[in-house]
């Protein structure tokens, strides 16, 4: 990163040459996102031009933003966590059951959500960091465990009827200066769901954490080269552990935001969310091999995925099929780009 800053005065070509991996991948992501949005505007008409269309995408993907942030943290340290989707489903179900069958209040249900996420994070982090087990196996087991447990908690999907909860669910945050005039000539404020505020806060916090704190920088060091990080005196095991704990905690927050968005409990909730979160991180320029990544990129990665989803659904294609295929194609494309970037870097 410092390399990039040092060459700021150089010519454009020098700049391009010195772009670090993080910035190059981030640039690709942002360009792809804008191209995609432009395409949506051109092919789907003016609907996408209204700020509200953008805010709707944001509202629908707030939970995914938070989950992806957690995944980026783990991936930067060179790990992976595929349990987040399962944990999200488990949290929705537990909170729904608690609110409706046990008459709980909303604050406690949020605490439950955090506790579940933190519990998964602590356990998986311990197994990965201190027992040195492959993160994929551990979190695969975590995913199946969470999914299975969701059915054990309650089999049938149901909507939450708790009043305080529905009130919170319906709360909208108005975005100033972004409203538009509707057909009848009345000015309508643009709004986002409450989860978006949480998501934006998480993104900013995590961005600052990774960029300016000692621990955040050690995440990159561990992911880049664990051996050298160890020689620099970084506690590699603890760093890995903390990354998983943070991911678990963010899965807890994301799970609650997801629950707030859908307002129901079901075992099939957040199906494939882990995949979406991984895809968003990768699209956002986080390297699977670790050491490279940027939360801002992750944010744009989620937006890109959300935009695709929106294009697919507004084009009238059967969503269940096509969203799976389009996501997979995106993931494949970006994985190949990464691999090529890595290969070139090695050669250079």
């Amino acid at each position: 990163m410092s390399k990039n800053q040092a060459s700021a005065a150089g010519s454009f070509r020098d700049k391009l040459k010195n772009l670090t991996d993080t910035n190059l991948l981030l640039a690709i992501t942002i360009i792809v996102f804008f191209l995609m949005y432009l395409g949506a505007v051109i092919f789907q008409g003016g609907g996408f031009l209204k700020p509200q269309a953008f805010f709707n995408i944001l509202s629908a993907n707030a939970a995914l933003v938070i989950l992806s942030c957690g995944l980026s943290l783990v991936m930067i340290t060179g790990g992976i966590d595929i349990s987040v989707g399962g944990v999200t489903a488990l949290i929705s179900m537990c909170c729904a059951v608690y609110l409706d069958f046990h008459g709980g209040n909303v604050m406690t249900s949020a605490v439950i959500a955090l506790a579940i996420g933190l519990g998964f994070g602590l356990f998986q982090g311990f197994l990965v960091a201190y027992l040195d087990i492959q993160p994929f196996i551990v979190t695969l087991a975590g995913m199946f465990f969470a999914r299975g447990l969701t059915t054990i908690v309650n089999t049938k999907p149901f909507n939450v009827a708790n009043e305080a909860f529905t009130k919170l669910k319906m709360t909208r945050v108005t975005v100033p200066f972004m409203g538009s005039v509707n057909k009848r000539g009345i000015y309508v404020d643009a709004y986002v769901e409450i989860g978006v505020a949480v998501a934006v806060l998480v993104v900013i916090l995590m961005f600052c954490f990774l960029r300016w704190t000692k621990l955040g920088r050690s995440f990159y060091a561990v992911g880049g080269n664990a051996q050298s990080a160890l020689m620099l005196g970084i506690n590699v095991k603890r760093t890995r552990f903390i990354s998983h704990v943070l991911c678990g905690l963010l899965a807890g927050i994301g799970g609650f935001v997801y629950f707030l968005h859908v307002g129901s409990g079901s075992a099939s909730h957040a199906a494939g969310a882990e995949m979406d979160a991984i895809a968003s991180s990768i699209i956002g320029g986080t390297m699977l091999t670790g050491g490279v990544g940027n939360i801002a990129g992750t944010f744009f990665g989620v937006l890109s995925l959300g935009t695709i989803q929106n294009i697919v659904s507004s084009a009238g294609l059967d969503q269940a099929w096509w969203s799976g295929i389009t996501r997979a194609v995106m993931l494949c494309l970006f994985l190949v780009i990464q691999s090529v970037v890595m290969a070139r870097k090695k050669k250079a």
Partner: protein
Amino acid sequence: MKKENSIFMKIVRNQCFIPLMALLLLVVFNLIADPGFFKITLADNSAGNPILSGFLITILDSGSELAILAIGMTLVTAASGGQDISVGAAVAIAGSVLLRVLCGTNSRPETLQAPIIAAFLVSCVAAMLFGAFNGVLVAYFKIQPMIATLILYTAGRSIAAWINNNELPVISEPSFKYFGEFIPGIPIPTPFFIAVACMIVTALALKFTNLRLYTQAVGINQSSSRLNGLNPAVIKVMSFVILGVCVAVVALIKVSRIATINYSVIAKDIEMDAILAVALGGNALSGGRFNMAASIIGAYVIQFLTTTLYKFKVQSDALPAYKAVVVIVLVVVSAPVVREWFAGFSKKFMKREAA
């Protein structure tokens, strides 16, 4: 003291020991809980043919699918140091292709539009192509196997539905059911014979070709295998292609069982079981040496566990939770760190004993 223990240690050290111990544990548990678990009855089915039925036969039947997958998964694990998590989706694709060829354009054909063997070969080729796709991502683009196969894991079932225009073709030809159920006159389910055939082919291949040597060489140390004149990438792709063949065979059995297909349910969560079978067989999930027999026994043990859980009225959706616990216990016990700690502990204990 060492000599005394040598035979005992030999048995314990054998890789088949762990899955067989697990099997013994399950058998004892079932014997205590309900000996009726082991009852096998001979009765006529609806077509009037004598067939065996009982929990053990179910294990033999469903476990065979898993055993076939475990063969391919073991090779992939050994060569690439990762697992293929797209096998369930790949089974859906292969099954869909199979039905598409058999039915032609009509989703409810009176007669088969193509011979079953031809349809199987086509689905085999399709599964091998998808295997090669995974393999190329892993071997040439150097993407971790589980991430690379995540692509097909997400898209696979959608592709399967798309192949048949989201229709559910039904095959009324009775001979198609032979592969997944019973051949008239033989009371043992056909999948078992198919699995045995696969095992024999695998055993012969491992005995008479360099498959085992090359796969292990690549898995243990990729760069040194390269210096010895092997091409690691080709061998990795080959392991994924072999898994593709296994997937096609399983798809034939699965589709034949119900004579139709359900894209979102067929072979659901089977990737977990296949990985579990490999792990239970004592094979390192990080690649390298492997023991095929242990994996196959592992597969049947996993099915034993599944059937036991079903018998205790555990819902099929809740099954993964129990299996996940088994996985965690297995990986924790076999983790080098834990083993070292355990070895150190027992050494200390011995010393104290001696003193």
